[in-house]
């Protein structure tokens, strides 16, 4: 270990920052090293003198003037505004909390409404089979009524097929229509 290291220890020791173990090691070194002893003595003189520099004699009038200036600045208009802001800070905090709750409620309500509107409506309460059975029951033996119902049924199927996204339109054709289509295919025409 060199004296440079001990010089730092001497400095730390003057600030009361050296551990007991290091203090003992340093003490042993100082006994043997005249150069470090001289360095420590110089630093002690410096420390004493630096301590005297800080004994500042401030005139009471100067402090009174400082006190007055501080008082004036504390009671100035800008300071009054600051004081007002501080006093109202609590109220503003609750206003912000209220506004945040309101915004949250509005956003949550909007999200719920959006998803509710996207859900599919309830299915038809009467099943297709039941309603068909009811109609057929009402038609009974009446052939005219049966024929009218068939026409209405076929027309609605045809309409549904045409409205479908990819209608397989030939399913709605009668025998004659299918024959015409087959003829077109056989002749190489585009359908």
């Amino acid at each position, binding site marked *: 270990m060199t004296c440079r290291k001990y010089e730092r220890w001497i400095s730390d020791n003057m*600030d009361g920052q050296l551990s007991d173990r290091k203090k003992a090691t340093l003490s042993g070194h100082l006994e043997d090293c005249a150069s470090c002893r001289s360095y420590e003595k110089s630093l002690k003189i*410096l420390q004493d*003198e630096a301590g005297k*520099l800080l004994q500042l004699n401030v*005139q009471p009038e100067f402090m009174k003037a400082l006190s007055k200036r501080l008082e004036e600045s*504390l009671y100035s208009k800008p300071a009054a505004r600051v004081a007002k802001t*501080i006093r109202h800070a609590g109220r503003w905090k609750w206003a912000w909390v209220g506004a945040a709750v309101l915004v949250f409620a509005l956003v949550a309500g909007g999200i719920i409404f959006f998803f509710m509107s996207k859900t599919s409506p309830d299915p038809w309460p009467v099943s297709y089979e039941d309603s068909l059975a009811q109609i057929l029951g009402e038609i009974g033996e009446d052939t005219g009524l049966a024929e009218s119902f068939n026409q209405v049924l076929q027309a609605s199927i045809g309409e549904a097929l045409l409205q479908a996204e990819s209608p397989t339109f030939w399913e709605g054709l009668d025998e004659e229509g299918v024959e015409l289509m087959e003829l077109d295919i056989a002749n190489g025409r585009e359908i």
Partner: protein
Amino acid sequence: MNRIMGASNEGTPSETGLLAAARNGSREAFSILARLYQERIFRTILRFTRNPEDARDLTQETFMAAFRSLRSFRQGAGFYTWIYRIAVNSTLNFLKKKGREKNRTEFREDVDSISGPGSSPEGESIRSELGRRLAEAVRDLPLPFRSSFILVVQEGKSHADAAGILGCSENTISWRMHKARKVLQGKLKPYLDEVRHDVP
């Protein structure tokens, strides 16, 4: 008044009560707090600036800055410690901005240094010269070294406290102190040798 300040049993306003009132915007309470600490803060700033006018302005700025940010003050830390940090940081910023490390004016009549008693008239003269040279040498130290030296040697702060105020590690403070002392010792060696001969 006692209701506002939360007077202690002795009838003197407690710091906690004053702080609570000040945090609610009471300028009266803050004014009392300022009066309690203004001299200590002024002296600390003066050690850095060595100019009473600058120190007075910075003291005023420090207390006004503290009043403005009083709501951010946490009760756990002492008020003096908090305001002390504001003062040191404002002063260091001021010194950095103004670049006033050099050509600083010495203490004026109303704020001056008191030299200590010498062992003899001759010793007094050597010591007084050493003190003057030391003041100059400290003034010429780079700001990080000077601020560490002032806080530790002149303000009596521990390395940990100085590190907390200056925002660096304890090891950095230790190193800066060692370097500052080394520089001062080197600069003042002739005077130190003379004084050493005078000291038993």
